[in-house]
């Protein structure tokens, strides 16, 4: 018997170790004195930086408020619906149940996409834009079925006679309902609430489509994916974790006291108490966040940028957005995205004042007449841009865009792991490094590398070119450890992989965290890319947008951005202020001769791009 008891403890212990081991890792890295996964000393810095980061704090407030309201409304809606559903029998009930489960079985991407279509459609009729309300509605939508799933079993188990008995004993219908039925269902209701809260708190995809310009925490984190997730997020998670645990312990202690006094502590009390505590907690946090947000600006501009693509005051850089807000008394509503295509999907329905797409995407937006010609009289700092970065092929007369950053695709390799000399992209096909080669998980960049090896110009490929490139990728596949984007950081920095192609500025950071890493500019040339600031046609404040663009071109701002992002700056005044070491680094600032060998992507027609995507998925999956 004793043995069995020990086994039971071991089993429970193992499950909880399983659940909490990653949390421990997550917490540990919030104290790491580096952005990378390599441990480089203990620090509290991220906690201080966290509270200075307005974007994260705002996102946190939004996330908590939405999660709480969504959980509350869906619990009510779901409980009422379960009661109603309970009295249907047979086929009718099955139909209702099946329809009700659709949000659960639908992949989130599709739910998100379809809800966006719905809200855009309704928005045109009723004249509203996606935002808090649509976000909340969509969260209630996907949470309610979970509430029903957890309340219904309780309802099935409930003795039907209880309700009647209560009435026989003199209760009114309403009294009987609240004191008997709800009491019986309470564990189910509470777990439905908790599940809803949990799902809502962590939902990214559906939110991304329906949130409009509301930034929530998971969106914030997802947009960091192209670069890397900041340890500030770990710090925030740690704080939340500690708070939740504190609440848990307090409820337990007070529960224990009460139990002593009154053996018959019922579920209702417990549930109510938990709700009250959660509520109090969220109101406090919401209040703090709300307070930090309230100030009186004269105007608002909406900026839509890549994740982690602006200096934010860390590491001695300027807090660019705060500086702009202070200087011009204009509030910047700052939103982020993770890829050009995502940005493109979003600007169809929402208006932003400044966007920062890449070269080929700018070409596409110009071709589709979605950009506003800029008034360069309002952007006097345009003179700071070096001539090499004006009039580039995507915007030949430079009417629509002002370059922000640029860079090349290069190869990062681990000197201790790679076999043979790395001179060009053929090193990615080296049999000797089998299982330690990483490749882009993005069709455009992966196919371009293959095309370069075949001597095809990747800037504007035909379907045949794509087919040939895919054959080459299929040959490479058995050698590939994985197709990656941001994971490349961890894999290269922790000696997990020997060689990987990635963007120059990012490789520079990886090399900073692992001394065995080195880089190679492929001898055959490579992709040269530019991200540039543009103003969409439906911008509400084009003049402020130009003011913002002009501000971004100030030398001090440019140098901060360049230092933070790690990509090269087209701003010659800013470059002059950079550390000599960075300015003369041939990885970030390759020579003019080398750049002449490089190519740019041009605006790929939609059908070719779709073909690329399909073929790449086919080639990179068995």
């Amino acid at each position, binding site marked *: 018997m004793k043995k069995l008891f020990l086994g039971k403890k071991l089993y*429970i212990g193992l*499950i*909880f170790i*399983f*659940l909490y081991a*990653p*949390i421990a*890792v997550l917490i540990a*890295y919030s104290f790491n004195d580096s952005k990378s996964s390599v441990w480089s000393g203990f620090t509290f810095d991220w906690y201080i930086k966290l509270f200075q980061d307005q974007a994260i704090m705002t996102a946190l407030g939004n996330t908590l408020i939405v999660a709480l309201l969504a959980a509350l409304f869906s619990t009510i*809606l779901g409980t*009422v*619906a379960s*009661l*109603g559903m309970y*009295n249907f029998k047979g086929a009718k009930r*099955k139909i209702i149940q*099946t*329809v*009700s489960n*659709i949000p*659960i079985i639908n*992949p989130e*991407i*599709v739910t998100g*996409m*379809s809800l966006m*279509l*719905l809200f855009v459609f309704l928005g045109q009729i009723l004249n509203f834009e996606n935002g808090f309300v649509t976000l909340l509605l969509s969260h209630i939508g996907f949470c*309610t079925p979970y509430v029903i799933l*957890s309340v*219904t*079993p309780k309802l099935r*188990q409930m003795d039907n006679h209880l309700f009647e008995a209560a009435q026989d004993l003199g209760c009114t219908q309403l009294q009987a309902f609240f004191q008997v039925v709800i009491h019986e269902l309470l*564990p189910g209701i509470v777990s439905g609430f*908790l599940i809803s809260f949990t799902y809502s708190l*962590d939902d*990214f995809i559906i939110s991304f489509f329906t949130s409009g310009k509301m930034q929530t*925490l998971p969106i914030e984190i*997802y947009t960091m994916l192209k670069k890397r997730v900041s340890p500030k997020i770990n710090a925030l*998670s740690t704080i*939340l*974790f500690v708070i939740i645990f504190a609440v848990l312990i307090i409820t*337990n202690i007070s529960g224990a006291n009460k139990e002593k006094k009154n053996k018959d*502590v019922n579920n209702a009390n*417990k549930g109510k108490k938990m709700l009250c505590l959660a509520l109090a907690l969220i109101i406090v946090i919401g209040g703090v966040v709300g307070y930090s947000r309230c100030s009186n600006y004269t105007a608002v501009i909406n900026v839509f940028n890549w994740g982690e693509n602006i200096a934010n005051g860390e590491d001695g850089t300027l807090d660019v957005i705060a500086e702009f807000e202070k200087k011009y008394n204009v509030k910047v509503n700052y939103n982020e995205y993770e890829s050009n*295509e*995502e940005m*493109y999907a979003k600007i169809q329905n929402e208006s932003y004042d400044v966007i920062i797409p890449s070269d080929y995407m700018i070409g596409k937006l110009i071709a589709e007449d979605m950009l506003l010609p800029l008034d360069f009289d309002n952007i006097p700092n345009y003179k700071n841009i070096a001539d090499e970065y004006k009039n580039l092929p995507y915007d030949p007369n430079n009417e629509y865009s002002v370059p922000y950053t640029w860079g090349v695709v290069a190869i990062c390799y681990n000197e201790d792991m790679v076999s043979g000399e790395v001179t060009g992209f053929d090193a990615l096909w080296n049999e000797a490094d089998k299982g330690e080669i990483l490749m882009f998980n993005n*069709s455009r960049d992966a196919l371009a590398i293959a095309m370069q090896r075949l001597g095809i110009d990747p800037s504007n490929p035909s379907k045949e070119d794509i087919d040939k490139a895919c054959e080459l990728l299929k040959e490479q*596949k058995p050698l590939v450890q*994985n*197709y*990656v984007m941001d*994971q490349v950081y*961890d894999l290269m920095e*922790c000696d997990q992989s020997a060689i990987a192609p990635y963007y120059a500025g990012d490789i520079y950071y990886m090399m900073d965290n692992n001394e065995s890493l080195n880089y190679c500019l492929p001898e055959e040339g490579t992709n040269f890319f530019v991200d540039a600031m543009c103003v969409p046609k439906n911008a509400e404040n084009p003049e402020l947008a130009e003011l913002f663009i002009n501000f971004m071109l100030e030398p001090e701002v440019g140098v901060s951005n360049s230092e933070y992002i790690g990509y090269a700056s087209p701003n010659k005044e800013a470059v002059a202020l950079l550390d000599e070491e960075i300015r003369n680094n041939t990885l970030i600032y390759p020579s003019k001769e080398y750049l002449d060998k490089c190519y740019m992507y041009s605006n790929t027609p939609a059908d070719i791009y*779709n073909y690329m995507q*399909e073929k790449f*998925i086919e080639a990179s*999956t068995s």
Partner: protein
Amino acid sequence: MKTKKLIIPYLLWMFVFTLVPLILIISNTCRDDNGNFTLIFLQKALNYKDEFLYSLWVAFLSTTICLVLAYPLSYIISRSSERAQSTYTMLIMVPMWMNFLLRIRAWVLLLQTNGPLDSFLNMLGIDIPLMYNTGAVVLGMVYEFLPFMILPLTTVMGKIDKSLIEAAQDLGCNKLHVIRKVVFPLSVPGIISGVTMVFVPSASTFLVSQYLGGPNNRMIGDVIEMLYKSDKHTASAIALLLMIVILVFMVVMNRFGDEEAVGV
């Protein structure tokens, strides 16, 4: 109870927020950009049948493992004191309040070559690849969705009348017998909820296999994620097929459940 009317708000809700969007998906699947009817997108979607089958296989494995891991735990929790019950429930929920992506990345750090787990196993003389395989993907799924198995099971088991178990014991059942003859049949609704809540998301989720799996472990959710930005039609078609497959699965599950309930 005259509560049939209570369903009305939810019916309206479902119409606007579930059925209308569903129709939009179907219309996206069957019509091209010019609004002409076509089946080409469904045909394209069928190109991804390997990823489909693989996703279902991963979902099946994850669900089975979750059920096996969760069932005894849920039983233990449901038999413990009320206070312990709520503590357990919270302890199980708390990890899920940390961001999904951060937790998966933490697993990468735990499992990587020369990482803590790998070093430990090497010390014991075991040398198996921990990452970039189906095992790692399933581990990620089990980790992600285990709480969604434990919670409904605990809820349902907690409601089983203790006197039933005592009665069975009085009538000479041993522990195993009690579980098989009393606890198990009564916990079927919980099993169904749990299986649904684990199987469905693990078949359709993305990013887990991108982080923990290798080039041979791409799942259908990842394919949709790669496609939806540029090719909404094919993405919708894949989603529609996935939905149909899962619907069939659920209908089968529910039928099984009802028969069990009748059996009791």
